[in-house]
C-alpha cells in the first residue's frame, strides 16, 4: 500500500503550496467581484461535497487492500461467493444521489442568477468587446472612447460586456472578476461582471484562435469612479481617433501593444456583427440597447 501513501503525500504537499500561496496567484479562488465570488462559492461547495465521497473511498481502498491481501497467515475472512447485499447497495446508490441532488439545486439556482446583473450595486456601464487575430478591441458606447488590449472600469459598478468576434471565435475571460463567455462572429453575447477592488488584473483569450493565440492577454484596470472619469477625459483629449481605415489595419492578423482612441465610428460594433453573419440571425434582442432597459430596473 505504499502507492497510496506516496500519492497522499504528494497531494498533501500540493495542498500546502496551495494554501500558503498568495491570493493574487489564484484569481479564480480569490475573486474581486460578486460574480466571481458566486462562482468561487460553488467551486468550494462542490469540492467539499466531492471530498465527502472521495476521501472515504480512498481510505476504504487502503483498508481493504491491506486487510485482504493474499498472505499465507492472513486470518481475515475469505468468502469467495459473497456477492450481494441489498443494504450495502442501497447505501451507495443513496449517498451519491443525495450529494448530486444538493449540488444540482445550487447549480441551477446560480446558473439562473448569473444571467442577471449583480444586485444592489451601482449603475451599470457597458463595454463592447471584439476579438481580432490576435488582439482585443474595446468600445465604450456611453463614453465614446475605444481601447486595444486593455480596459479601465470603475470599481463597484456592474459591467455589461457585449461580445463578438471579427476573427475565429475566442473566449473572453477575466478570472479575477468571474467566468468567461465566447466571442463569436455574427453574434453579440452578453456577460455581466463587476470588480469591487481597485487594482490591475489580467484578462485572456481562452479559446484557441491560431498562431499567436498565446499572446492574447489584456489588462484590466479597476479604478475609483473619479479616476475612471479622469481617464476617459484624458483619452478624449489626448488620443487619436479610430477610423474605419484604422480598424481595418487593426484587423490584420498580428500582435500589437496597448492602444487608446478618443473616438470610433459610431456603429462599428453593430456593423461588425451584421457583416459577419448577424444579418442571418434573429438578432433583434441581441442588438437592442440594453443599457436603457437596465437603467429602468
Amino acid at each position: 500500500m505504499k502507492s497510496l501513501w506516496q500519492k497522499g503525500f504528494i497531494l498533501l504537499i500540493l495542498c500546502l503550496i496551495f494554501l500558503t500561496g498568495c491570493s493574487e496567484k489564484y484569481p479564480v479562488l480569490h475573486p474581486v467581484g460578486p460574480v466571481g465570488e458566486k462562482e468561487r462559492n460553488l467551486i468550494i461547495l462542490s469540492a467539499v461535497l466531492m471530498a465527502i465521497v472521495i476521501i472515504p473511498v480512498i481510505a476504504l481502498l487502503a483498508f481493504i487492500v491491506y486487510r485482504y491481501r493474499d498472505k499465507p497467515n492472513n486470518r481475515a475472512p475469505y468468502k469467495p461467493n459473497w456477492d450481494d447485499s441489498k443494504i450495502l447497495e442501497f447505501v451507495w446508490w443513496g449517498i451519491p444521489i443525495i450529494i448530486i441532488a444538493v449540488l444540482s439545486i445550487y447549480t441551477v439556482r446560480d446558473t439562473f442568477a448569473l444571467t442577471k446583473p449583480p444586485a444592489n450595486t451601482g449603475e451599470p456601464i457597458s463595454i463592447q468587446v471584439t476579438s481580432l487575430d490576435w488582439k482585443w478591441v474595446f468600445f465604450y458606447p456611453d463614453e465614446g472612447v475605444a481601447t486595444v488590449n486593455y480596459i479601465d472600469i470603475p470599481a463597484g459598478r456592474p459591467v455589461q460586456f457585449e461580445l463578438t468576434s471579427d476573427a475565429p471565435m475566442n473566449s473572453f475571460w477575466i478570472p479575477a472578476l468571474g467566468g468567461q463567455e465566447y466571442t463569436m462572429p455574427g453574434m453579440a453575447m452578453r456577460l455581466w461582471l463587476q470588480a469591487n477592488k481597485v487594482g490591475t488584473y489580467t484578462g485572456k483569450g481562452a479559446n484557441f484562435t491560431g498562431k499567436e493565440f498565446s499572446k492574447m492577454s489584456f489588462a484590466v484596470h479597476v479604478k475609483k469612479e473619479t479616476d475612471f472619469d479622469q481617464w476617459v477625459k484624458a483619452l478624449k483629449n489626448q488620443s487619436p481617433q479610430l477610423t474605419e481605415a484604422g480598424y481595418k489595419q487593426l484587423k490584420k492578423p498580428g500582435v500589437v501593444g496597448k492602444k487608446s482612441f478618443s473616438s470610433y465610428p459610431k456603429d462599428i460594433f453593430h456593423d461588425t456583427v451584421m457583416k459577419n453573419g448577424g444579418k442571418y440571425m434573429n438578432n433583434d434582442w441581441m442588438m437592442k440597447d440594453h443599457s436603457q432597459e437596465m437603467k429602468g430596473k
Partner: protein
Amino acid sequence: MFEHIRSFASHFFVTGEPMIYASDVAIVLFLVGIIFTLTYLKKWKWLWREWITTVDHKKIGIMYLISALLMMFRGGVDALLMRTQLALPNQTFLDAEHYNQIFTTHGTIMILFMAMPFLFALFNIAVPLQLGARDVAFPFLNSVSFWLFFFGALLFNLSFVIGGSPDAGWTSYPPLTELGFDKGPGENFYLLGIQISGIGSMATGINFLVTILKMRAPGMTLMRLPLFCWSVVASCIIIIFAFPALTVALALLLIDRVADAHFFTMLHGGNPMMFINLFWIWGHPEVYIVVLPAYGIYSEVVSTFSGKKIFGYKTMVISLMIISVVSYFVWAHHYFTMGASAGVNSFFAVASMLIGIPTGVKVFNWLFTMFRGRIQLKLPMLWTLAFIPCFAMGGATGIMLAVAPADYQYHNSYFLIAHFHQTLIGGVAFGLLAGMYYWWPKMFGFSLNERLGRWAFWFFNIGFYVCFMPQYFLGFMGMTRRVYTYSGDTGWTSFNFISSIGAYLMGIGFLFIVVQVLYSIKYGERDLTGDPWNGRTLEWAIASPAPHYNFAHIPEVTERDAWWDMKARGESLIKVNQRMAFKPIHMPKNSGLPFIMAVFFFISGFGFVFNWYWMAALGLLGVGICMIVRSNNRDSEYYIPAEDVEKTEAALGRV
C-alpha cells in the same frame, strides 16, 4: 521544368526544420530496415498469408495492439515536446506553429489512434474467447475495420512529412478550420484520416454487438455474460449511435473546405455552432466509448485477483446501461459558455452530474469485490488499484466541471486539462494496460516480467500525479489551455516545471514497458496451462495462445463465471475432448480484399487532401470494385477436417 518540380516539392514536403529532416531520415531508415529484413528472411509471403489477409480475430487483435503501442509512442513524444516547451517561461524550443501542430496531433492520436485501437485490440482478443465463440460475427468486416483504421492513421501521420500537420486542435472548431483562416492541407489530413478510420470503428461497433448477441456458447444467457462483454455491449451501442454524428460533422466540414460550401461559416447562412454541436454529440459519448470497456476490464481483473465473484453483478450491468444512455444527454457541457440560456445550461449540468451516480456505485462494487477476498498484487491488479483513487478524483473534478457557473471559470483552463487527463489516463490508459497485462499470456503464450512491470508502474503512477496535480492549480491561476508560451510574471513557472518533470517520469515508465516486452519475449515465463491467473471466464479454459479455431468443442455454460464453475465441478475442456469425438470446424477464409480496399480508401483520401479529384475518384472507384468483387464471392468459408483439429489438440497436450 526542374524549377517547377522543386517548387512543388517544397510545398508538398514539409521542409525547413532540422527536427523534421531528422525524422524523415529516421522514417526512411526504418522502412528500409523493415523491407530489408523481410526480404532477407524471405518473410513477405508469410506476412501476406498470416497477417495481412487474416480474418482471425486473435491476429487482428495483435495487429491493433502493435499499432496502438506505436501510436502511444508518437503521441507520447508529442506530449514530451509540449511539456519541454512549457517547462519554463518564454522558451523558443518550439515556435507557435509547431506547438499548435503538436497539441493537435497529440490529442487526435491519443484518442482516435491510440485509445480506440487499443480497446479494439482487447475486444478482438477477449470477446470471442469469453463467449466461447470461434470468431466474431463478421470476420471479413473485422479485417476491413482494422485496415481502415490502419490506413486512416497512416494518412493522418503522413501529414508530418507531407503537406504539414493539422493545427486547430483535436476539436477542430470552425470558423478557425474554414478556408478563410486555414488554407493548408493539414486540416484535410485530420478530416480524412479520422473519417476513414471512423468507418472502421462504426463497423467494429456493429460487429461486436452482433457477436455478443448472437454468438454466445449454449447456456450463456445475457445474465451470465462476463462483465467485460457487457461493457463492450454498452460501448458498441454508443459507437453505433454516436459515430454517425462525427461522420456528418467531418463530411460537411470537408465539403466546406474542398467545395467552398458554407455549412459552418457564419456567412451565407452557415453556422459554426452546428459543427460544435455535432462534434460533441459524438465527442462526449466517445469518452464513454473508451472508458466503459476499461470498466469491464477492471471488473474482470478485480474479481480474478481477489479470487471472488464480482460484487453486485446486476448493478454493474444496470449502471453500464444507464451510463450508455445518459452519456447521450450531456454533450452541451462542453460549451456552457457559448451563450446557451440558463435553462439549457441547467439541464445539461444536472444530466452530467447524474452520470456520477452510476459511476460512483461501480466504484463501491469494485471495492466490495475485494472485501473478503484474497488480493494478489499482480500487474493487472496493480493498475486496477491505481485506477480507483485516480479515477475517483477525475470523476469528482468532472462533477465540479459540470456545475455550470463554476465551469465558466474552469473552461479552457488547465483545470479542464487535468480533469480529462485524469479520467483518460487514470481511467482508460490504466485499464488498457491492465487488460494488456491480463490477456498478454493468452495472446502470446508467455507472461510479461513482473519486476520490470513494477518499475514501469511506479514511474508512470508517480509521474502521473506529479504531472497533472499541479495543472489543477494552474487552472485556478488562470492558465489557459493551448498556449505555446507564457511570461514569467504570470507566476505559472514552478507548477509548469513540476508538471514537466512528471511528464518525463511517465516517459520513463513507458520505456520500462518497452524494455519489459522485449525482455519477456526472450525470457518471459511460458504459459503451459492456458490459465496463468486462475481465471474465471472461458478464455482461460483453452490453451495459450488459443488455437486457430479457439474451441475444439464449444463449451456448455451453466453458471456466470463459466470456467470457474467448471473447475469447481472438476470439469475441463480437456475432459470434453476426451469424451467427445472431434468434428470438422467451419471457418472463414482469409482474404486480401480488406487490405486492398483500405489502400483504395487511402488513395482517395490522399486525393481529397490535395484536392486532386482524379485521384480521389480513382480511389473511390477502387473501393466500389472491391465491394462488388466481395459481393460476388461465394467461396469465403472452409472446413478444418476433424483429424486436423485432433492433431492440433494433441500437440497442445489437450486430448
